[in-house]
């Protein structure tokens, strides 16, 4: 299997606070990698390093064999990296369709430049995540679950090769979670490599090919879900705390 993304000894410091410490990992092409860990473990920080909204204090990142470090955020989008935000960042004043349209117009390889074609692609993405009936509403009028779906549609409209999902299931009910899992599976079937951050254990377990566990900014486990979740360090660090 070829690697689409590799992180080497990534460290991120915010002034005194070490959010990530010496984390190395890799993501195979076509794989779903689950990223878990307690609150504040550094999961979102890692996603931000990959998407370029944060720069690492030290360490290296390679995407399809090329170093990402000197590559700007928008250029990473053109290379095929798409992400969702845990703290959702819709374009509130724009219609749901135009929100997604931005992804289609500017995404991978600079996007589809023709407005009409981009609109159609955006529409298809919205249908895909189950927001087809909301296209003409303003994004700010959407409720929580629909905003999560919108985040996903915006990233998908970019036609990414690598999709980074930061808690797209948080706050959804069981039925909605099942729907999102189904959507992510279908995305993978299109050949897109995926990194999912999720606190919903059942979801992440059934979805991931492999799990990566962070704790206090350090990698404490990496491997097949079953093995990782049986690892005593993981049980202590993550599951132990969640239960309390």
């Amino acid at each position, binding site marked *: 299997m070829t690697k689409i993304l590799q992180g080497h000894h990534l460290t991120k410091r915010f002034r005194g606070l070490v959010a990530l410490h010496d984390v190395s990992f890799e993501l195979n092409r076509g794989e779903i990698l689950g990223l878990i860990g307690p609150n504040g473990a550094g999961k979102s920080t890692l996603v931000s390093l990959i998407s370029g909204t944060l720069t690492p204090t030290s360490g290296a990142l390679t995407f399809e064999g090329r170093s990402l470090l000197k590559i700007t955020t928008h250029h990473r989008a053109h290379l095929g990296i798409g*992400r969702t935000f845990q703290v959702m*960042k819709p374009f*509130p004043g724009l219609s749901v369709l*135009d929100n997604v349209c931005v992804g289609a*117009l*500017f995404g991978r390889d600079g996007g589809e430049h023709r*407005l009409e074609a981009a609109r159609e692609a955006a529409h298809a993405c919205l249908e895909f995540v189950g927001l087809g009936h909301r296209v003409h509403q303003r994004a700010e009028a959407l409720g929580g679950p629909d905003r999560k779906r919108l985040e996903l549609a915006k990233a998908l409209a970019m036609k990414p090769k690598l999709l980074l999902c930061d808690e797209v299931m948080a706050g959804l009910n069981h039925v909605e979670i099942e729907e999102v899992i189904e959507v992510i599976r279908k995305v993978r079937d299109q050949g897109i490599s995926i990194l999912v951050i999720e606190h919903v254990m059942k979801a992440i377990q059934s979805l991931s090919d492999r799990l990566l566990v962070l704790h206090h900014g350090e990698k404490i486990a990496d491997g097949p879900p079953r093995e990782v979740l049986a690892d005593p360090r993981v049980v202590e660090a993550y599951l132990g705390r969640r239960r309390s």
Partner: protein
Amino acid sequence: MTRRTRRVLVTLAIGLPLLAALPWIASPVVVQFGINMLIMATLAQGWNIIGGYTGYSSFGNSVFFGLGAYGVGIAMAQFEQPFWIGLGLGLLLAVIFALAIGLPVLRLKGHYFAIATLGLAEVVTAIVSNVPIAGQNVGLVLPLLKSDVLFYELSLGLLLLATLTVFWLSRSRFGLGLIAIRENEEAAAVMGVNTTRYKILAFMLSAALTSLAGGVYAYYITFIDPAGAFDISLNVKMIIMAVFGGPGTVLGPVAGALLLSVLSEVLASKVTNIAGLFFGLVIIVAVVLMPRGLADLLQKFRRSGWRYFAQNIRSHRL
């Protein structure tokens, strides 16, 4: 989209001939008022690109206006070049200035950007006051062209150019990129918008239109000096007009400029000494009751009636 497009086209088709015919039927005083009004509308529209669409409240646009004025002033008064050459020179100066200054200041967000651009006018005034070719702090006297009708139609043409530019913007990939930056810059970058380049291009486009208005105005009033050309209160006016009409819309800033120009003129002639007070009150009330401008009022009032105002007051926590 098609409905919005039609509305713009219909407004242009009706409004343009009416405006164009005005100098042939109205008195000279009205024509002079019209020129000022059209220049203001062009400035509001120019500001709309960087302030309304891109979301960067620029106080540097009065510098673009001044550079446009000085382009014409220097070309005509110092080198006896035709007006058009002066317009080109002013445009070039303004666009280069926007490019040079855009790189550092457009990195600043929100209030910081506003404050940084606020300082620009002072700096440029000081510089120009010491440049011999610009007439230092004495200023420049331009050749006189006594044809208000010509200036009127020229200003109208300029406003049309600015409005068509914004119209194109509102339905282009570039424009959607700018709006995305305004709505959430980080999300825009993550989705592939080259935010730095787009912001600078918007600033340059805004500068270009604004400088043209400055050039026309300089020729019209035939005299420019640093204090007048780089007057920051002109910048405040463009913002008020654009925001009153509806920033980030195609026709809002134009409507805002026309309406407020007429209003302030009427107030000034009817109730001379408290006109300023009235004008201020109108603006405060308007911003409180319809913070997103006339354009938003026209769109939403039909749906929610008087509740529209109540909602605005509530949602802005007054």
